[in-house]
């Protein structure tokens, strides 16, 4: 996969929040084989020592960071957060979230497109957290986005791919655009499904961080993503409604 001119081998992007400890986070990142982790900016009391310790941990892992604008509800908030993230994390990459509803964390796609346009004009490489809506996707591309990140299901739900038809249509419609399923993934089978549908990668956090054994789950997701990607390349059989015997009928004994 290539995003904004960068070759990425791993098809798994991992969030860094909600892990039981920094050590487990580090082990999970390593077990996942990811090359890109998401990070954020937040207020911190006490001179910024905790932030520095977290940054040191991530930097030492040798992975790329993708800062987010999580929690932003307006264009202004998102753009300002992105500007601050660019300075702190020293990257033009931004995972753009503009939330429209607190219950579903559904993106406000109108403000998302506007923020994407402003940030692209300002030199950012925007990774927009969006829905599977094709027209919104088209507008995001026109705004300057070179990658799209449709949700599988609302953030943190673990429901998997809620609208397979919509996602399949999106994949077909934007054949040459890197598409990353972002949010809603709960199980490795969900991730494998996304890859089988032809998506380029999956981004997840809670499914690993909140597992009983986050490190083992990170490894499971790595294998699922690889399996799904390999299956897609292997050209899966077409599904059919009626049964068809796999054992040859010709040569069957007459024993009745």
């Amino acid at each position, binding site marked *: 996969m290539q995003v904004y001119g960068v070759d990425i081998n791993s098809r798994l992007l991992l969030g860094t929040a909600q892990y039981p400890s920094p050590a487990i986070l580090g082990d999970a990142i390593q077990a996942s084989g990811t090359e890109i982790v998401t990070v954020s900016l*937040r207020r*911190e009391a006490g001179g910024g020592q905790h932030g520095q310790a*977290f940054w040191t941990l991530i930097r030492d892992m040798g992975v790329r960071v993708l800062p987010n604008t999580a929690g932003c509800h307006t264009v*202004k908030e998102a753009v*300002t957060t992105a500007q*601050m993230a660019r300075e*702190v994390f020293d990257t033009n990459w931004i995972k753009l979230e503009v939330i429209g509803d607190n219950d579903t964390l559904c993106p406000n796609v109108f403000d998302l497109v506007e923020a994407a346009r402003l940030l692209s004009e300002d030199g950012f490489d925007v990774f927009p957290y969006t829905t599977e809506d094709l027209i919104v996707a088209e507008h995001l591309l026109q705004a300057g986005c070179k990658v799209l990140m449709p949700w599988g299901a609302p953030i943190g739900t673990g429901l998997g791919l809620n609208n397979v038809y919509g996602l399949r249509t999106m994949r077909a419609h934007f054949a040459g655009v890197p598409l990353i399923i972002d949010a809603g993934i709960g199980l490795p089978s969900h991730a494998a499904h996304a890859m089988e549908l032809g998506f380029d990668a999956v981004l997840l956090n809670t499914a690993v961080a909140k597992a009983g054994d986050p490190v083992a789950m990170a490894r499971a997701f790595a294998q699922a993503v690889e399996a799904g990607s390999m299956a897609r390349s292997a050209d899966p059989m077409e599904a059919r409604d009626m049964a068809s015997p796999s054992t040859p009928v010709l040569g069957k004994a007459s024993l009745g």
Partner: protein
Amino acid sequence: MKIIVNGQSLDVTATLLDAALGELGYGEARVATALNGEFVPVPARASTNLGDGDRLEILAPMQGG
């Protein structure tokens, strides 16, 4: 002078942003700043004046999804 730092009302004697950060213990910290909702990049901190009641956000790297 009283300013609002990350939502909390604090007294600072410094009148410039970079000096106020040092006074608040963020002198060497890897943080980004916004004053009254506007991003203030590092090079601009030394020439950014603070006024009574200003809202200062100091953000640090954090875990995120």
